[in-house]
């Protein structure tokens, strides 16, 4: 039976790690993810896990060690934020190309520069095309639940891809919530044993991994990787259904909040969804048909499902907690509009960049977005597609 506990996001994720009892955790400290390896090293020091904890000398080595461990047939995990994820960049691509289901707690923090320790999504957004499955978590419960599901998704035989569980630095990583924790045995049974068909420790069937692969083979290898990402949607939903059976908590590709007859909607990720849902409720109380979509699975991007979910709206705002600095809009905006193109006609879609470097986002800010959407829905006119929310402009 599940038990309720007051836990921070980081503590909840470290407990998930403990319950999974992986073979290797290799990590390097960086705010705000540091607590995860800190808690975990205590479990290791007290013999509560069998895991070999490797306190590496950099995040690049953390991901490299996870690759080595996973290639050797083990289950490997790490946690990081911002610069740490950036330093792992090279290895993120290699982990996914080698089809190694490493699990990463990505505690979202703004990328330098200037240096800033607070939350936005510029770190994981930069890694969105590294071949990792990306799952975004609104609160501590989701961070915990998604971390456990991540292991099973990544190791699914049709998938074999690394997975990052992204949750907001400080807002989710350090806030304490009363959440439901599975029993250790339930987690162990849920994730099962990792038995990859090929690995380096098989003396009878030794293998070479990571070749020089020239034009005659490389393209097919990437094509297979792309296919795994595309078909992982099915595995993600299968794992969610199994998870629901055990816990009663339902997960999909994204959460639709009061979308049934919504005319104006925002698309958003992670903790700000909570603030925005409050605004939706307030608007609904005033008879305004407002809704919200909170993306859970951002990679693979559920293009058809997102387009379908937004097809009945008159006006949609995509909120990005990262700017692409491309003169065109944020990453989620670009993906949502691409998904809608050719699938859905007549919906006006605008973009807001918000909360960079941990700038607080209030219900008033979100209200401002819905006000604009109502105006667009009424007039059919969009003044500006690419907008900023809560920034001082001189």
């Amino acid at each position: 039976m599940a038990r309720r506990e007051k836990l921070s996001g980081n503590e909840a994720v470290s407990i998930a790690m403990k319950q999974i009892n992986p073979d290797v955790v290799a990590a390097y400290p960086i705010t705000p993810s540091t607590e995860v390896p800190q808690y975990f090293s205590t479990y290791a020091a007290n013999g509560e896990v069998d895991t070999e904890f490797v306190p590496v000398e950099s995040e690049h080595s953390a991901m490299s060690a996870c690759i080595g461990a996973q290639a050797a047939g083990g289950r490997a995990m790490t946690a990081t934020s911002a610069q740490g994820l950036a330093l792992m960049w090279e290895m993120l691509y290699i982990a996914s190309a080698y089809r190694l289901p490493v699990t990463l707690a990505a505690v979202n923090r703004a990328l330098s520069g200037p240096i800033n320790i607070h939350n936005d999504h510029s770190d994981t957004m930069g890694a969105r095309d590294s071949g990792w499955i990306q799952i975004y978590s609104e609160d501590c419960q989701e961070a915990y639940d998604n971390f456990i599901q991540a292991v099973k998704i990544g190791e699914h035989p049709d998938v074999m891809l690394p997975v990052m569980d992204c949750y907001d630095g400080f807002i989710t990583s350090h806030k304490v919530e009363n959440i439901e924790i599975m029993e250790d045995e339930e987690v162990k049974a849920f994730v099962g044993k990792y038995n990859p068909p090929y690995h380096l420790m098989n003396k009878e069937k030794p293998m070479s991994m990571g070749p020089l692969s020239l034009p005659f083979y490389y393209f097919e290898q990437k094509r297979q990787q792309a296919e795994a990402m595309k078909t992982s949607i099915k595995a993600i939903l299968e794992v969610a259904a199994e998870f629901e059976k055990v816990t009663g908590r339902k997960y999909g590709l994204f959460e639709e909040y009061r979308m049934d007859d919504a005319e104006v909607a925002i698309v958003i990720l992670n903790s700000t969804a909570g603030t925005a849902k409050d605004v939706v409720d307030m608007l609904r109380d005033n008879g305004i048909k407002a809704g919200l979509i909170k993306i859970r699975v951002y990679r693979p991007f559920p293009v058809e499902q997102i387009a379908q979910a937004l097809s009945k709206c008159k006006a949609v705002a995509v909120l990005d907690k990262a700017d692409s600095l491309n003169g065109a809009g944020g990453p989620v905006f670009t993906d949502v509009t691409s998904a809608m193109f050719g699938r859905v006609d007549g919906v006006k879609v605008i973009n807001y960049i918000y909360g960079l470097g941990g700038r607080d986002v209030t219900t008033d800010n979100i209200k401002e977005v819905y006000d604009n959407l109502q105006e667009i829905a009424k007039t059919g006119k969009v003044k500006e597609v690419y907008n900023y929310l809560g920034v001082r402009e001189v």
Partner: protein
Amino acid sequence: MSYNLKEWAKRPERFTGGHRLCAGCGASPVMRTLMRALKPEDHAVVSAATSCVEVSSFLYPYTAWEDSFIHSAFENVAATISGAQANYVAKKRKGEDVPNTKFIAVAGDGGTYDIGLQALSGAMERGHDMVYVCYDNGAYMNTGIQRSSSTPQNAATSTTPAGTVIPGKSQPKKDLTLIIMGHNIPYVAQTLPLSNFKDMSEKCEKALYTPGAAFLNILAPCPRGWRYETHRLMEMCKLAVETCVWPMYEIIEGKLTLNYIPKEKLPVEVYLKEQGRFSHMFAKGNEHLIEEYQAQVDKDWQLLQNLNEMK
């Protein structure tokens, strides 16, 4: 067990022929000797940094490695292998049935002295039960002979050409082996392919079977970068030892022992003049370059002799 070349030669070839290393390359005998030093019953996981050895030994879909092998990137071979080794420890702790396995990292000097130094230092300090083998050819040979911090002073490379103003690489070679000595690991050694390979074979064996982290720095001449005729590989090695350019020594639990002291230390000219990369040093007016090189070799040799006597 005393060393016997004939016996060693009968051991199974675990780094097989068909790889694409150049004729006259020092890395190939190094890899073959290293893999021969494994007990036949032991499994090995070898990780190579991006390097000549890596691209020549594992060109998809062919591999020269009879054991398990992984390449992930350039600067992280020590971290990659330490992850594999950590997994081995965890599996044993869990009571799983795992074969007796040795963990080996292989990299060139670029991947070791330069870009891989941080990961190497980390893995050595953490004390993983592994062997890190640097095959040192003194430049980035794989990308076309660019200088590394292992390139000897005054050598011409494609990024330190022998110019009219700057005559090759300005700085002396970094002493990596002694840097690793500072990591308090149980076994550190410097060797090279020489005569009957006794020194290199025994050191590979010791490194593999000393519990904890071990480091081998092995000189591996490169005919392309050094510019010598391919059949003269073994002569290059012999001269490197007789001139004390590449002394053979080992450091066991912090105590350094010189394994060979030439009766008559040859002048560096005999080593330099055989290699095209040093040819500009013999041009008229460049005599000071040879003197400079000799002075550095003398200084390094003196330091090793002092450390040798300290035991």
